[in-house]
């Protein structure tokens, strides 16, 4: 019985558990790179990272074993349901937009990039009224920019094109 089940198993839990394990290895590995300096301290800067790294490695190993054997039924069920309902296209598009926004923010300015981000995110999420979205996005971005930058004194990148006031 276990063989067909294994084939049908969703990959989500395994990927997640392996990611946790990888993080654990990184934490543990880098802990050894922290130099214990020459001060006479009983617990140095390395002790706590070692503890956390080991904790993460041990619990992630448990999770990985469970994920590969499909032992955690509740988790497997949930992941199967998620896999059935997931459409990766919009996720990738949204993520791409966010990364693009990260790089655009400083050179292009806050309100400019935000207006574009708003419009395109609404688009990705299925809105079919780009003109309305663009108008809403622009008003929202400008309102936020003026409120933060001009009234509250929290500075947002102005970009190349500056407001006249």
């Amino acid at each position, binding site marked *: 019985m276990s063989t067909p089940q294994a084939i049908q198993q969703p990959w989500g839990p395994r990927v997640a558990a392996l990611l946790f394990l990888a993080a654990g290895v990184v934490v543990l590995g880098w802990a050894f790179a922290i130099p214990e*300096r020459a001060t*006479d301290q009983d617990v140095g800067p390395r002790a706590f990272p070692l503890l956390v790294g080991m904790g993460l490695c041990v619990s992630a190993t448990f999770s990985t074993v469970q994920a590969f054997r499909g032992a955690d039924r509740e988790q497997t069920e949930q992941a199967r349901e998620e896999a059935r309902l997931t459409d990766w296209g919009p996720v990738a598009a949204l993520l791409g937009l966010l990364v693009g926004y990260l790089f655009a923010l400083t050179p292009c300015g806050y309100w400019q990039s935000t207006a574009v981000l708003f419009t395109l995110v609404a688009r990705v999420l299925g809105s079919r009224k*780009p003109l309305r979205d*663009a108008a809403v996005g622009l008003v929202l971005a400008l309102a936020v920019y003026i409120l933060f930058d001009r009234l509250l004194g929290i500075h947002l990148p102005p970009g*190349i*094109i500056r407001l*006249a006031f």
Partner: protein
Amino acid sequence: MPPLLRNGPRVVLTVTLLATVSSACTIGSADDSTAAAGYPSRGLSILAPGSVGGGWDARARGMSAALTGCKIIDEDVTVTNKPGAGGAIGLARMVGRSGDPYQLMTMDTVTMAGGAVQNDSPVGLSSLTPIAGLTVSPSVIVVPARSPYRDLTSVMAAMKRNPKGMSWVGGSLGGPDHITVASLAKARGIPVKKITYVPTGGGGEVLNLLLSGASKVGMSTLTEIRPQIEAGKLRVLAISGDERPEGLNAPTLKDLGYGGSSVVSTGGVMAPPGLSDGERRAIVSMVDRMRRTSCWKRTLKQNDWRAVWLPDTKFGTLIDRQQKQVAQVLNDVGLTS
């Protein structure tokens, strides 16, 4: 086909629309020519390398209020915060603004120096243009009222017998408190690497650790613990610096023969590197006028800072001297690789 591409024309339309609206706004003009006489001809920006509500921020906002509120200049002054890495992030930003006389930064000579040494930061405080030292806040060495120690001499004697057992608590690592404690130990011939110094975020934590009996002796700026001293919960053993603050009956470190160990951090203003002499003099003169205003005096009073005036190269000399001292102490403590 993803919906984004399928609806290409409309997306283009949207973007065009955005661009049209954008172009209605003026293109910002950057005038780089600065005649020192007409300084400042546009708005100033003061950078606080710490977060809102901290000491650097308080100084930046106090300056901004004094410059505009007491009508020293007609242009507006904005305060920006660049917190992080003990001020090193703000410092790096200042270095990047080389040649811009409209960007100032508030800082402290020792806290900043400590941060920069510790983080192996490639840019030092000395690469900036010193404008002026403006304030000092005296620190005090205190013990809880029920402590057996009556004076600094007995503390140092006990520390000599058992360096690890005499636990000190004070401000941040590499800050003036830490440097003073390490220098004291060194002056008494106590191995600096053996001392127990627990750094904290400042006054409140120092108080708690002293009053709960966790730590034996503490160091903090006077402002933060003055009420406890007046209430008789803490006993002052010594005052750092050369002068006794008003209403405080305790010897200074200099009186006790530890003059060389005392490190008092001076708060001041810096400008980016690469300024002309004229520009530098114009900024110094503006700050000089600022410090005489009633607005600035109110800020001093609110924060319990003592005013000093170390313009231009005097400030630069102080920074260089204290940075060397800090680097030396941190090296003794074993904190620099």
